[in-house]
């Protein structure tokens, strides 16, 4: 990528090597076994990648927004499940960094940075998805503690996480809590058989009068969604956007390689104009999505308020084209594309999940469209 400075280019090479060596060769097996091996988690931790949102003073390796995007790109290229690990772990880490008390930061950030503790983001419920403000899990104040009751579902890496960022409803409204896995009254049931993200060790959490200290609250009561959840999801969308570009790039590369080898009608697929049409659209989509992600990274680095909308646009477009590109990759690979020996079918299944998580694409569309109308009104009234 031409946009990278020397340090970013060096990191990008390192991330690529990591994924090529440790992730891609095992991603299909992880998908089939529906689990993430411990040694891969250890490798992510040892390389400092789990501390990518945490500054050095807490033992992390945070650098710049673009470098973090590149890491997401590469993990998305290798395994969307691992991308989701980095995403939710980063969302929890960044939320504690931004909204946590001094004690919460000191207690959790060094362990999250070292990967001793995995963070998971527990917002979705069996009956509450996109409209997280309607969260149903109750948190009832009880002395200097809260009793949490209810369920959370489809929580990525719930099976492994030692710390959950939980959105619950208090009398004041949606409120965020940090809940350690070993709290009495909290149990986790693994979820198997999902269409994609099959190695992401999803789980359903049950809170049965689970008692947490008031000091476990993250941020202020009633503002758990508008600030804590929103800023976490903003980071989540940034990760997913970059990861989607990585997934699409991998599908493009697989298609270029396969169509150069595979012969049909006496000639390589690459010589067939209808294949060339697919490849041209894939290349264009990937470049366009990457340009949006680069724009989002630039604005995030500047802490610009517009970064939120640009990240939403990048997530919407990148995940949409990831599905399109993966779909075309399956088509180019023919029967091989849907078989267990080729990764294209895994990428297609994972790409569909990218369109749903961290705010469904329909939510992104409504947010983007509203911003478009606001922009029109602003321009009309400024002239």
């Amino acid at each position: 990528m031409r946009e990278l400075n020397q340090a970013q280019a060096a990191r990008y090479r390192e991330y690529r090597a990591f994924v090529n060596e440790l992730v891609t060769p095992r991603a299909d097996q992880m998908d089939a076994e529906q689990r993430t091996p411990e040694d891969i988690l250890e490798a992510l931790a040892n390389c400092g990648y789990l501390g990518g949102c945490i500054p050095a003073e807490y033992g992390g390796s945070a650098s710049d927004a673009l470098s973090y995007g590149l890491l997401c790109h590469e993990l998305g290229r290798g395994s969307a499940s691992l991308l989701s690990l980095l995403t939710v772990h980063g969302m929890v880490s960044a939320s504690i960094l931004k909204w946590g008390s001094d004690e919460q930061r000191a207690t959790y950030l060094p362990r999250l940075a070292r990967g001793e503790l995995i963070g998971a983001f527990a917002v979705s419920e069996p009956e509450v998805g996109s409209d997280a403000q309607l969260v149903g899990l109750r948190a009832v104040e009880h002395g200097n503690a809260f009793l949490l009751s209810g369920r959370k579902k489809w929580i990525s890496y719930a099976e492994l996480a030692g710390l959950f960022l939980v959105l619950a409803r208090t009398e004041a409204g949606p409120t965020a809590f940090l809940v350690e896995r070993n709290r009495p009254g909290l149990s986790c049931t693994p979820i198997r058989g999902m269409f994609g993200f099959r190695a992401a060790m999803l789980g359903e959490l049950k809170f049965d009068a689970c008692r947490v200290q008031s000091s476990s609250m993250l941020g202020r009561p009633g503002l758990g969604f508008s600030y804590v959840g929103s800023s976490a999801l903003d980071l989540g969308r940034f990760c997913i956007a970059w990861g989607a570009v990585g997934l699409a790039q991998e599908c493009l590369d697989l298609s270029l390689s396969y169509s150069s080898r595979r012969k049909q009608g006496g000639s390589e697929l690459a010589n067939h104009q209808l294949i060339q049409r697919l490849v041209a659209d894939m290349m264009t989509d990937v470049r366009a999505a990457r340009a949006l992600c680069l724009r989002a990274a630039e604005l995030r680095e500047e802490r610009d308020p517009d970064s939120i909308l640009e990240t939403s646009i990048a997530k919407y477009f990148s995940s949409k084209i990831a599905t399109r590109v993966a779909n075309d990759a399956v088509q180019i690979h023919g029967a091989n594309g849907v078989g267990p020996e080729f990764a294209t079918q895994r990428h297609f299944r994972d790409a569909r999940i990218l369109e749903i998580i961290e705010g469904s694409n329909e939510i992104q569309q409504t947010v983007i469209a509203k911003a478009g109308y606001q922009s029109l009104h602003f321009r009309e009234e400024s002239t």
Partner: protein
Amino acid sequence: MSTSSESVQDIKTRTKDFLFRFVRKRNLADSDDFFASGMVNSLLAMQLVLFVEKEFGIKVQSEDLDLKNFRTVEAISGFVEKKRALG
């Protein structure tokens, strides 16, 4: 550190310039509650945090998370003044 009356006005002007991109009300008064009026979308809460942090060089932290600090131009200006005074 105290803030001069000129800079208070400057904070309000810069805040209004930012808000006019999102709020369709050109005669926005300093005391208008733009959250209560439904004039804004769901992104604005976080956009305002990023705006005051970048524009005025302050850091919004958990203890500052109170919509009262962000509901009106007057409240934002008072909040920025307070944070600057605290250094």
